[in-house]
Every structure is written in structure tokens, then in C-alpha cells.
């Protein structure tokens, strides 16, 4: 698979395709990226890894021309300094192509249409499309990646791996056409791929590097980084935490770089069965990603669920609430079976869900606070053939007071509230039903620190005083470490590790997300 093209690229082989020196980016008073430097050699696959908020996305957006970096940094492509910011057309002009998870393919169009979508060759005098040339080009591109496909078939019919390769072929065509070799950035390109397709993508990625271009492979997944890259750069808190040749690297060391400290071995032992009654009992739950998941939450317990992107945790709230149908498995709430329930059955059984999207799932932005807050309990306000508006307003005003929602106007349009106030209003709404089980999905997304504190205080108080069971699905590990008494870390749809007691800290949770502990991944890559 090592291509002869590498030899042809020899004259410039020592000059990095991309060289970044001292790039910073501050938003307001927060530094998203500080003094970051990076070299990517031609013919290599370079990994970039780090936790949420480490500055990865900021860096990719600078490369993509969306963000202007702070003055002072330098960026050179093939040895030549380029002007910053790059601007929206800059990356393409320099031979940099960025591929995101969604791949930007149009499902209903054919392969040839997708390959030529932005750059149809035309000929005078009528700017007629050069179909024959386009088709020949498309075949050549597919042949390069050994894809034996009918170029007229719609992209929708392709399996995930072939779609990704198609997108790569298209991106690469743009890069190489202009410069011979360039930089392909793959941003979480495997997140949407089934496992058996990932290896195909890797083959394509290695081939791109073999032909002389460079690949920046951005991923959450240690196994993928170790499998496909030649070197890895780790970002932590906006700073480069080190660049290491992949061959010299153990997963344990990589986790240490990502998390920022050494993590002890986990015993993985379960918490001693508590005396409190089980409120939620999940057995053998299967969803789109979730596989055979079993766990329980007891009265008064706050249980966190987390994992890397796409490990199945985001499915859980919808399944437990009956908003999405489980493929199989049993969900019992206080003895009531909710395996195939609808949301209204779940509500009746004492489940409340504060969903991940406040607008669109939790509330309608154009409706008032009152209308949104009383929606699930309207029946209670319908007396003698009339909706009691005054009582709704009174109750909502009372809620805004108890949950410190500002402005305290029940008639305010919901969308005009800040994220934190919206979340407090929705929390108050569902807590008002006195649920047995409260599910919070990413409760702190877009919520300011003060509101977070208020929200978690309310939740913890209700758990302690009213024996409410709480399940928090979140990607924020510091938050889980603070409020949860147990944290379940998922890996590819199953339970990877359960953290309790002394093991329960931010770093341990993060490490577990990257595959540390448990029996599903070897801790040391030997």
C-alpha cells in the first residue's frame, strides 16, 4: 500500500505541509487556544485529541477560516507563511480541505453529481456541462480507492464507510488538483460509522498519506488514534500538552496527556446494594446504539451516565421517557413496566424529563413561559369548562420565585429568557409534578455557572428530602463528579465501568470514557 508517489514528493519532503506557531484565540476573557504550535509532515497521518472544550474545535475553525486567531501567531503551508485569518475561501486556495462528521453529501443525488457538486466543468459557448469528462473523473476517483460502484446510483444507498470514502475522494481531488499535495482534516469522521466500516476508512486515510498528502485526524477515540496515526498531538485546556510518535505511545500514557494526571487502576467494583427501594430498573435495554444495558436507580440516588460521543448515552433519556421505542428490553419505574410506553404513560408513572434541547423539545420559543410551564398539567387548570388563567399565572409566578427565574413575568415569551432561566423554568415545571424519577439530559448546556449551581442544588435537595431518583445524562465530567453518587460510563452502547465513592472524580470519569478500566479495552496497548 505504500505508494511510489512518496518518492516523487521527495524534494519537499522535509518541509511540513502545515506549520503552526504560537496561535492563540480568546473569546472575551476566555482563552480557547493559547500559544498552540503544530507541524504536520507530508505523507503522514497526524492525530489531534483532547477533551470537550480543549480547543480542538477552535483550532479547526481557525484552519477553516471561520475564526480569526489573535494577532501574533504564524501559520505556514508548504513552508510559506500565509496571511491570517484565512477567510472562508482561504483553506481551499491553500489546499486544505476539512471534512466534518456530516460529510456534506447530498443523499438524493448520484455519486457523479456529488463528486462534481461544486466544480462542474463547462465548455463554451453555452457553458454546457462536460458530462463525459465528469463521468470519467468520477470513475478515476473511485478506482483510486478501489470502490467498485455505479456512479449513477444515489449516495443514499451507500453504506457509511463508502460514503465517507466518497467524501474523502472528493475533498482530495480538490486539494491535489491545485497543489499536488495538501492537508485533509477529518473532524470526528468515524463518529457516524458502524465499526465494520471504520477499517475501510482507515485504509483510505493511509492511502491519502501514502500518496503524499497529509491527514489531520481529529477524534475522541484512543483506539482509532493509535490505529491510524503516525503521531499524536494532545490539546488540554487550550494548550498543546505534547506531540508523541504513535509507535512510542501506550493508551495509558495518552490518557494521562489528555486528562492531565496519572489515573489509578480502577477496581470497577459495584456499590454495595443500598437499602433504598429501586425506582428505576432497566434490564437488557437495546436501542439504536445501546446494547443490553441493565442498571437501576434507587430512591434518593443521583446517578450520572456519560461516555464519548455516540456511545449510546444520548439515546437513554428518550428511551426511558417513551419518546423513542426501545428495540427490546424492560424499563420498570416503581414497578410499572414502561418498555413500550409513550411519554404520557411515563409522565403518569412518575417520570419527568428535562430534555437536551430546551427549544424544540422542552419548550416552544414563541409561546409564553406560562403556556410552556403548564402544558403537561393543563387538565388541572380546567375547571367548570374554563381554563383558569389566573391560577396558571399565580402558579408560574410562584415557580419563578422558587427557582429564581428572571424575568419573573409569567407572560414573557419563553425564547427571550436566557438559557439558564429557561432551564430553571423547565426544571421547576417538571419538579412541580413531584416525579419519582427525574431525568436530566445535558442540563448544563448553555447554562451560566450561577444557574447551574441553583439547578443542581434544587435537584440534590429534592433527591435528599423527597427521595426523588435522579438520572443525569451529561458529557460534563466535572459536573457529574460533583453531583452524582454513581456514574455509569458507556462504551459502544454497553456499560463499561461504574464509578462510585473514592473513584468518583472528574479525571477518573474522563479516563473511563477513553476506555480506561473495565474489561472491554486493554488498558495497556501491548
Amino acid at each position: 500500500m505504500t505508494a511510489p508517489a512518496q518518492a516523487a514528493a521527495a524534494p519537499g519532503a522535509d518541509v511540513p505541509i502545515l506549520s503552526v506557531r504560537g496561535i492563540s484565540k480568546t473569546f472575551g476573557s476566555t482563552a480557547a487556544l493559547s500559544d498552540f504550535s503544530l507541524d504536520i509532515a507530508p505523507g503522514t497521518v497526524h492525530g489531534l485529541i483532547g477533551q470537550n472544550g480543549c480547543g480542538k474545535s477552535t483550532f479547526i475553525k481557525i484552519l477553516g477560516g471561520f475564526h480569526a486567531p489573535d494577532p501574533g501567531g504564524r501559520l505556514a503551508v508548504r513552508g510559506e507563511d500565509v496571511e491570517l485569518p484565512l477567510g472562508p475561501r482561504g483553506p481551499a486556495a491553500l489546499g486544505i480541505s476539512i471534512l466534518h462528521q456530516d460529510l456534506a453529501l447530498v443523499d438524493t443525488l448520484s455519486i457523479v453529481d456529488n463528486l462534481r457538486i461544486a466544480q462542474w466543468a463547462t465548455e463554451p459557448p453555452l457553458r454546457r456541462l462536460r458530462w463525459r469528462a465528469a463521468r470519467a473523473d468520477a470513475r478515476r476517483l473511485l478506482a483510486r480507492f478501489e470502490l467498485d460502484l455505479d456512479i449513477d446510483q444515489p449516495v443514499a444507498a451507500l453504506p457509511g464507510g463508502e460514503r465517507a470514502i466518497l467524501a474523502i475522494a472528493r475533498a482530495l481531488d480538490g486539494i491535489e488538483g491545485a497543489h499536488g499535495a495538501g492537508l485533509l482534516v477529518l473532524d470526528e469522521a468515524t463518529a457516524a460509522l458502524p465499526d465494520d466500516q471504520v477499517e475501510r476508512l482507515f485504509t483510505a486515510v493511509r492511502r491519502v498519506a501514502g500518496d503524499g498528502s497529509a491527514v489531520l485526524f481529529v477524534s475522541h477515540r484512543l483506539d482509532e488514534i493509535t490505529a491510524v496515526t503516525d503521531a499524536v498531538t494532545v490539546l488540554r485546556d487550550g494548550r498543546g500538552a505534547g506531540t508523541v510518535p504513535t509507535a512510542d505511545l501506550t493508551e495509558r500514557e495518552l490518557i494521562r496527556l489528555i486528562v492531565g494526571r496519572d489515573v489509578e487502576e480502577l477496581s470497577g467494583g459495584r456499590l454495595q446494594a443500598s437499602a433504598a427501594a429501586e425506582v428505576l430498573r432497566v434490564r437488557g435495554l437495546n436501542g439504536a446504539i445501546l446494547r443490553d444495558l441493565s442498571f437501576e436507580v434507587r430512591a434518593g440516588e443521583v446517578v450520572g451516565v456519560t461516555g464519548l460521543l455516540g456511545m449510546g448515552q444520548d439515546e437513554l433519556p428518550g428511551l426511558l421517557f417513551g419518546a423513542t421505542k426501545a428495540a427490546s428490553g424492560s424499563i420498570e419505574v416503581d414497578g410499572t413496566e414502561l418498555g413500550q410506553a409513550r411519554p404520557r404513560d411515563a409522565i403518569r408513572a412518575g417520570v419527568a424529563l428535562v430534555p437536551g434541547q430546551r427549544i424544540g423539545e422542552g419548550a416552544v420559543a414563541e409561546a409564553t413561559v406560562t403556556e410552556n410551564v403548564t402544558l403537561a398539567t393543563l387538565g388541572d387548570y380546567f375547571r367548570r369548562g374554563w381554563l383558569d388563567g389566573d391560577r396558571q399565572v399565580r402558579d408560574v409566578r410562584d415557580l419563578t420565585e422558587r427557582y429564581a427565574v428572571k424575568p419573573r413575568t409569567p407572560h414573557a415569551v419563553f425564547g427571550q429568557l436566557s438559557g439558564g432561566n429557561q432551564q430553571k423554568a423547565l426544571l421547576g415545571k417538571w419538579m412541580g409534578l413531584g416525579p419519582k424519577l427525574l431525568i436530566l439530559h445535558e442540563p448544563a448546556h448553555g447554562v451560566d455557572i450561577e444557574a447551574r449551581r441553583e439547578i443542581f442544588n434544587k435537584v440534590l435537595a429534592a433527591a435528599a428530602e423527597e427521595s426523588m431518583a435522579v438520572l443525569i445524562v451529561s458529557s460534563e465530567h466535572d459536573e457529574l463528579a460533583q453531583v452524582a453518587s454513581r456514574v455509569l460510563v458507556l462504551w459502544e452502547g454497553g456499560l463499561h465501568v461504574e464509578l462510585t465513592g473514592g473513584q468518583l472524580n472528574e479525571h477518573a470519569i474522563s479516563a473511563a470514557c477513553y476506555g480506561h478500566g473495565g474489561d472491554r479495552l486493554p488498558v495497556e496497548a501491548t
Partner: protein
Amino acid sequence: MADLADQPATARRSAGWWAGEVLYRFGVPALLVVLVVVFSLVAPSQFFTVTNLQNILGTQAILLMLALGLTIPLAAGEFDLSIVGVFAFVSAMFALVTVDHSWPVVPALLFALALAVAIGLTNAFFIVKVGVNSFITTLGTGTALGGLTLLLTESKTFSGLPEVVVTVSSTRLLGLPLTFYYAIGLAFALWYVLEHTPVGRWLYFVGSGPEVARLNGIPVGAVRTVALVASSLIAALAGLLQGGLLNAVDPFSAQSYLLSAFAGAFLGATTIKPGRFNAWGTVAAIYLVITGIVGLQITTGATGYITDIFNGTVLVLAVALSLVVGRRRAAAGSAA
């Protein structure tokens, strides 16, 4: 009010903002008044007369009923273009069984209403169960019903409907046919349901945020089904009353109502309770449209074509207006 004290943003709003808000909320009724004044000044002897007032209020009561019925599925986020098909089909079937087959009134009436419910359920089956777009579904069922009407009636006009139907619809009270009062009664009923019962709130949430509605335990499919059956039933009743008013059923008569009803409902959603389909907004909008048309006919001598020009223009402008002002409000909201 205490509300204002709690919300400094409101207090800081300028006089200009309030003027805009009032104009926005009451723009349609205000424009209605302006039109009445202008036409009365231009043609006092023809326009500003009791006869003309009775004409405007009375003859278009049928259209008002159709528009009010249409407001229900629109509130739930679904189109119903089959209303004129239902209108023509059900009234023709009623005429067919009573005039040609001498059925007694009560079974004929039950038969007619059962047909309306069946059509509404058919629409709901395709829209709610199968997931076909409501615009497409009802365009299809409405067109098919129109054709079916012509087939079954052999394109003929029926006259001599049962006496009771004629009496119930066309008896005059204060110079206006009873049908006008039914239409106003329907407006009250719709206002009550939309503003003062949980069902109205459900309709609105199903229309503006179906996922939000579902996650609050609202039976979204059932709400949509009820809305489609309701518009079908109201269209059928309007058809029967029209038959009584004219003492005849003409299978071709309905088509002209479709665009007017949509224009009325959409223009109505820009006023009284802006951004929401609402009963009194629809009433004000229908009478604005009719006054405009009648006034133009009287003052310019324009004939039938003016209706189409006016309705078409109003429909597009009404939707454009609600979009523009909606954006303005959204922008004001995010700035606050």
C-alpha cells in the same frame, strides 16, 4: 401592572414600539374601518346603506364558516384544501338523497355528517398514520371529491330541498339570515375552544412544536385527527346551510371559496393574537376581504375577476406580513 414593574425591558420600550405593537395587533380591524370610511365617502348612496351592510354580513356567512373551520387544522400545523370538496360533495349527496330519493331529513342529515367525518378520517389516516404531507393529501382528496360530486350528480343542480333546511338557514332576523348568526356562534365556539380549553393550547403546541407537545404527553396524532375531522364537519355544515340559503345545490358553486378562506385564516393570524390562528382574527380578516371586494366592485364597477385578484394578493401579503413582523419581534426579543 406588577408585570411591568418586574420587567424593566418592557418599561424601557419606546412610544414608537407601542405604536407599532398596537398597529400590529389591530391593523386588520383598523384597515377594515379605513376601507368602510373611504368607500362610504366615494360612493355614499351605494356603499353606506343598510342593504349593503346586510349584503356584506349576510352573503359571506358561509365563507366565514369555512374560514373558521379551516383555522382549526391550520392551528395544528396542517393544511386542509379539501374543505371545498367536502362542501360540494356532502351538500350534493344530501340533495341527492332528499330530492331524488325522498329520504326524510334526519337520516339524510346523519348520512351527510357521517360522510364528512369519514372524509376527515381519511385525510387524517394519510396525514397522521402514513405521514403524507397535508397539503398534498387534502389537495388530492378535495379534487377527487369535486370530481366524484359531478359524477354522482351528473353535473346537475338540485332545487327544492326539504323545507326545514331552507327555514333553518334562511329565516331572517334583524334583516340577516340565521346562517349569519350561526357563523358568529361558531366564531364564539372556536374562540372558546382555542383560548379557554386545554384542547386549544394542545392545538397550538402541536402546530408550533410537535416534539414539545409529544414530550409533554399530548396525544399529537389524536389532536391532528380531531382538527381534520372538525374542519371537514364544519365545511359540510356550511355546504348544507348554503343549500338552504339558495334552496338549491349547485355542484360547481364551492370552488371560489377556497382561496378566500385561506386568505381569511392567514390574514387573521396576523391580527388580534398575532402569530396564532385565532377566531376573531379570522372574522376581522374575512370581513376586511369582503368589504374590499364589495367596495371595489361598487366604486370601480369591476366584476367577478376582482375577487380573485384581491384574494390572491391578500393571501401572499398576509403571509409575508406575518413573516416580516415575526422576524422583527424575534429580533426585538433576542436584543432584550
